[in-house]
């Protein structure tokens, strides 16, 4: 066939192609071993030399024409095929996902972590101490000798006449001071479980406390004002920016002066409600300036060192933070309760 005929035939054939299979068949028809264009190109040997160049160009034109058409058609068909495949893979994206269970962190421990983070950011150490304590550390080294009336304030679980479950995290104060051998300033908190021999609607025999102790050289003047400022930061963080504090002189054997600290009621904001017994205040902290006897007994010279200490229960802070109405829920461990605490705190 002549060049022009082939070109016409090819243009016609290309128009009728509908699939990638037909396209490949066409490739055999034109460019296969016995293909129309292949055969045409073989005729070059019968062409006089001076025409060979022009003939060659014509054949290449045909090849290029075919390949261009082939490639573009091939692209189109492939895309169509892929689209068909994708469509066949259509799913319902609203069906449930596959996931492992969601874990959760106990609200008390969440509160503890928040308190730890706050105090670490203010330069405090976090110190751990034993829950099974000796009478010495829980009482005696805190200026509470045997027979002291203030021991009535805390009914204890004794295991022997020497060992008991700690009634207060304050026990860690003495341990920390001894550890630092009266030489280094201290700025620490200790958070953990404490135990008292009482069980009623508002007291659980097991509860959690945070204890803070700051001791520095006298010239640095760690004072009641510093204690006040620190507790204001602490309570505002836990109970909200509008929280007000009231320092009430009180008595603890390990501090002198001693203060109980009330917060403006977090339920009614100070207007008076049944939670605060209409007083507008809720007692939350015990605090004071470390008693010189406590410093002395634990290796710090009260003429050279001084500081403050404070302690508070955490259970109620956790209840406030998450709006938990009943203290018992904290220790019941119903998974429907636990599972609610499964995301990041804000």
């Amino acid at each position, binding site marked *: 066939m002549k060049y022009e005929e082939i070109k016409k035939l090819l243009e016609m054939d290309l128009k009728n192609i509908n699939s990638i299979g037909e396209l490949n068949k066409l490739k055999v028809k034109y460019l296969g071993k016995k293909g129309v264009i292949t055969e045409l190109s073989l005729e070059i040997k019968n062409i006089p030399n001076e025409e060979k160049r022009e003939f060659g160009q014509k054949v290449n034109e045909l090849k290029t024409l075919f390949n261009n058409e082939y490639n573009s058609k091939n692209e189109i068909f492939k895309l169509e095929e892929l689209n068909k495949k994708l469509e066949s893979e259509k799913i319902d994206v609203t069906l449930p996902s596959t*996931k492992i269970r969601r*874990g959760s962190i106990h609200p008390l421990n969440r509160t503890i972590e928040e308190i730890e983070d706050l105090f670490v950011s203010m330069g405090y150490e976090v110190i751990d101490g034993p829950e099974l304590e000796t009478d010495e550390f829980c009482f005696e080294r805190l200026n509470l000798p045997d027979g002291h009336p203030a021991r009535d304030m805390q009914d204890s*679980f004794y295991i022997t006449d020497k060992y008991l479950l700690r009634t207060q995290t304050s026990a860690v104060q003495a341990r920390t001071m001894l550890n630092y051998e009266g030489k280094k*300033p201290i700025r620490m908190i200790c958070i953990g*479980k404490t135990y008292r021999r009482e069980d009623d609607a508002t007291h659980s025999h097991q509860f959690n406390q945070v204890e803070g102790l700051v001791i520095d050289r006298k010239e640095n003047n760690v004072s009641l*004002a510093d204690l006040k400022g620190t507790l204001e930061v602490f309570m505002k963080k836990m109970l909200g920016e509008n929280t007000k504090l009231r320092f009430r002189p009180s008595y603890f054997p390990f501090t002198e*002066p001693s203060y109980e600290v009330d917060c403006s009621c977090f339920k009614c904001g100070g207007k008076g409600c049944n939670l605060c017994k209409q007083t507008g205040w809720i007692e939350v902290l015990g605090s004071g*300036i470390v008693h010189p006897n406590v410093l002395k007994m634990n290796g710090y010279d009260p003429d050279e060192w001084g500081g403050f200490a404070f302690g508070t229960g955490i259970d109620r802070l956790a209840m406030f933070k998450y709006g938990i109405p009943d203290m018992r829920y904290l220790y019941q*461990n119903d998974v429907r309760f*636990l599972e609610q605490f499964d995301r990041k705190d804000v």
Partner: protein
Amino acid sequence: MILSRNFVKDYIDLPEKLDIKTIGEDMTRIGNEYDYAGKFVDCTKLVIGEIISCEMHPDSDHLHVCKVNVGSEVLQIVCGAPNAREGIKVIVALDGAILPGGTIKKGQIRGALSNGMICSIAELGLDNKFLKKEDKEGIAELESSAKVGEDALKYLGLDDEIVDFDLTPDRGDLLSILGMAYELGALYDLKVKDMDLKYNEISENINDSFKIDIKTDNCKLFLAKKLVNVEIKESPKFIKNRLMACGIRPINNVVDISNYVMLETGQPLHFYDADRLGDELIVRMANNDEKLTTLDTLERNLDENDIVIATKKEAVGLAGVMGGLTTEVESDTKNIVIESAIFDGVRVRKTSKKIVRSEASNRFEKGLDPKRTYMAIERACALLEKYANAKILKGMCKYDKTISDDKLIDIEYKNINDVLGSNISKEEIINVFNKLGFNCDAKKEYVTVHVPSRRLDITIKEDLIEEVSRIYGVDNIEGRLPVIGEINNYYDNTIRSIRHKMYNLGLNETLSYILVNDKDVHKFTSDEFKELRLLDPITEERNTLRYSVLQSLFKVYEYNKAHNNKNISIFEIGKGFFEMSENQKIAALMTGKYSLGLNNECSVDFYIIKGVVEELLDYLGYENRYSFVIPNNIPKEFHPFQVSEINVNGTVVGIVGKLHPNTVKDDVYVFEINLDKLFEKKVGNMKYKEISKYPSIEKDLAFIVDKDMTSDTIIKEIKKSGGKLLKEIKIFDVYTGENIDNNKKSIAFNLVFEDNTKTLTDEEVTNVFNRIINDVEKKLSAKLRNM
């Protein structure tokens, strides 16, 4: 301590307009918290009336229709009391009166108009212990001199106001009306008045006929006075009312005066029937096995730690706690001996804890001012002369080893301001001390404060600083944050990291009580230990400290199961106790679904919980350092063939497994790790390892081995033969069934070979691979399976 407003008015002129609640609030602000502040008898609109006629109600066999003159008018009131009759003076609650039982409203009672209520004493809301039979059974009959129309409470002397304080244990001085007067004086800047201690003495001297003999150091001060011809009768109304307002039941004038003086001065007194007592009082420690019958008629067993008051013959009282029955003042008593003494607080506390806590023991425990010991005995004499016609013998038996001078404490003004972080002027500081009734010698830099003996709680400078902050007011000191000096804010966040890892693995954190029942304490462990029991548990249900945290989780599981919660995956980090020591432990319990979804729901099995253990150990840096070993001693709560010890570098740190069907019917999987034991195995810092630049070669193979052989055994052998070039072994299939003998199984491994220094040749890998096959076949009687 209950403060009676009428009582304290004897010693301080509180402004009438000062509201009782305000007094409570102001006292709270200076450190004396209150529980109640208000009227002693919380009633309104009670007046004195006279019944001018009393007829039976036509429709009732017990109601009376009375006409009552209340001064301004005559009211018709229906009254059911049997003693209602014409001519008596009564208490009338007018229309709208508020009584503890409710509000009185006029209305019809069986058709008869009733314009109020005629009251019994009981209806006024007095505590039951103060009520006599007649107070409850009928309406109160007032004396004929009572003036119609006047305020009935005022007439009865029950128009008192009280504040019930919850005091701190250091303020023993406030357990007295006089102490309260000084405190109120400091608060409102008022002067405290003197007490009336005047009385006459007869010529006979007590020292001629009576002796005291103090044989123990536990009594520092002992005073005795003798009174004769005492007339025992009812106390005057004001004494009875004040005692009741302070919560003490009136008995008779003598007993009441003893209590009255204790309330007034804070000093407990004891009165003996002098004729039954004899001529001597001895203070000594009790003998072991000594017995004493106390006032409450109970026989008490004493020991050498109890202080007793005795005659030569026998003990007649437990010092500071309770008197003895044999020398009690009774209605026929004529002559009395008064004891006013100070006993050691710690001893009294211990004895009273054993026998009974009383108003007296409470005061001895907290310490007493020797000056008040003298004051009280004089005051009692004065009152007994006045209200019991007693004749008082001259002189006093006295033993006194106390010092009651003012304590002198020097304190620098700067010191006060340094500790408080304040800027209080010298004048203001002196003013505070003066308000408290402390004399001061003010110098330029410091002040010498004369602390009176009543303030036993003030012994050091710091106590004075507290006084300044109390009266000056902490609200007036501005808060600030401490300046950070040398600091070491170390924080070990390992436990927190573990908690968060477990949370991310889909487990819920629990928090349990560590007190458990002794029956459960040895469960879920095969460790041998002596359990720690409480000496004095609240309930037997929680009488022992837990050893295993797993045991707590099992209780949580049971609770949840009972509440229909099925998918439970929980963990707890906490202490386990033994031998006066404690270990930090983590336990987990998993049952039900672990992953959720339409086609991918998966229930917890051994390999899932084992996966949790491995994830945790890997996270903590123990990768490749642990193994799972079949234990020799399996706790009986575990499935005997689905349990493993968790072994880290040769030490058993925990257990993982399924629970025995005898423990629980459901498929429940648990683990527990002793974290303290685990942390003994140190973990180094994370370090970058060179990544090989050369390609690795993977090869698969499978061995047929005995069914009982653990995969671990084969892996160990493969590792040994594989040497340095073998980088990784993974099990990808375990097969039993067709083509495998019944007692055999096939395990398929994927091995990865790699050399960090060069590209491996096929020949090298084949050599190692063949060596592995050879060794495993020979040493473990295994057969390579054709794949």
